[in-house]
């Protein structure tokens, strides 16, 4: 299959996912389950990675700006902007593509090869809507929170590491993270995180839903889900940056 066919099939699947649910109650329950599975269970990894990335960004900025020409508050400023603009949305999305994307593709792929999706269809249930829509909604709702969590923990990580290593003082760092603060950057970052959540859930669901064969192919779908979500995220990162910041 060529790229255009994939995009066509993907679009139809996404469209089919957004149809009226057979039972609102069942879908609401599914949404809550998925929010826990995809979102809440990802807070740990997001927090850990954000903390260390914040720490490393701060220390690296400090060592690269050791010239007296640079004021000390620049360290906090640079760390803040790196975290808010790129890190908390794009890098977190790439990490989620690995964790959540492979999880979605293998779950739906297994349901496909064990005929559970056929079983849903035979019952008269729209399997795409039942399986995929709650996942999309769950991650779209939670992605901004994960993103904000990442920002906060990243900035804290930078502060703890910077002051522990002694490259920056607490007042300088705090002055830096407040210096010429542009609130729109946060909006920009949250918009990106929502778009990335949509990409991760739909691309991974697509790979899972159209798995053919057995266990081996489920593994393959899972890998493809991660690779393709990541590439699409990077592409849209470029597009969105141009659209939102220019």
């Amino acid at each position, binding site marked *: 299959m060529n790229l255009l066919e994939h995009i066509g099939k993907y679009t139809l699947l996404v469209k089919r996912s957004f149809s009226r649910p057979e039972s609102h109650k069942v879908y609401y329950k599914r949404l809550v389950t998925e929010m826990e599975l995809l979102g809440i269970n990802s807070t740990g990894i997001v927090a850990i990675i954000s903390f260390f990335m914040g720490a490393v960004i701060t220390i690296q900025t400090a060592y690269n700006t050791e010239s007296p020409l640079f004021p000390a508050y620049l360290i906090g400023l640079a760390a803040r902007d790196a975290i808010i603009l790129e890190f908390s949305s794009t890098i977190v999305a790439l990490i989620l593509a690995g964790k959540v994307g492979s999880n979605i593709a293998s779950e739906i792929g297994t*349901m496909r090869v064990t005929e559970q999706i056929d079983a849903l269809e035979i019952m008269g249930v729209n399997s795409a809507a039942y399986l995929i829509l709650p996942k999309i909604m769950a991650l779209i709702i939670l992605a901004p929170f994960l993103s904000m969590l990442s920002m906060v923990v990243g900035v804290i990580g930078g502060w703890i590491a910077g002051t522990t290593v002694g490259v920056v003082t607490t007042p300088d760092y705090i002055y830096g993270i407040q210096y010429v603060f542009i609130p729109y950057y946060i909006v920009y970052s949250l918009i990106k995180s929502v778009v990335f959540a949509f990409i991760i859930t739909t691309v991974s669901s697509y790979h899972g839903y159209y798995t053919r064969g057995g266990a081996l192919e489920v593994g393959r779908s899972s890998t493809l889900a991660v690779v393709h979500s990541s590439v699409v995220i990077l592409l849209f990162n470029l597009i969105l940056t141009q659209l939102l910041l220019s």
Partner: protein
Amino acid sequence: MIEVTHINKSFDGQPVLNDISVSFEQGKTNLIIGRSGSGKTVLLKCIVGLLETDSGNIFYSGQCFTSMNRKEKQKIRQGFGMLFQGAALFDSLNVEENVRFKLDMFTTMTPKEKSERVDFCLKRVNLAGKNRLYPAELSGGMKKRVAIARAIVLNPRYLFCDEPNSGLDPQTAIMIDKLISEITKEFNMTTLVNTHDLNSVMEIGEKVVYIHEGNLWWEGTSEEILETDNPELNDFVFATKIVKQLKKLDDI
């Protein structure tokens, strides 16, 4: 009543079903038999619409299923029950939730009514009290029985079974066969069963359809099958030594 008229199906130019026309009656256990790879599963999946046919029509009680849109098909399918070869229970749901699934999805029953209905169906397949177990904790035979309970929970008009006793020991297999045959009568369903098991043919077959390399080769009753002089069907029926011996005894 299900009518199939002139259906053809091929995969990548490789024909799998050739011009099959056949009808299946209500209240009867209709068997589709044939060797492995003869196209039984493909035929069943075409009939329920999981696979699209290349040509031909399928009628449910006179309504043309093939020309329906997605929504209309979904409506008809709410009257389907299907038993998949691997049971296809939902892994993430326990036995009760699996059986209750269609009630949650399509009815406005109260929780009490639902749990009564679930218990009734589980009792019917001899699995009373197993409500809290997960599919991974069940044996092959139990999975099939849960799948039957799930299939009959909304009183289906049509029941489809793909190799319901594959991978089961002979006694469990006979039990599953009997269960299918009994519920067919109880609910007055049109039941289609795919099998390559001659035991099933003798035990529960009312109408039998023999598929040979994607062609409808023979149809008749399970009594007629032993008398047939159709060479391919004879080869299929008398493949095992034990059946051959029986035939000899019969001839004496």
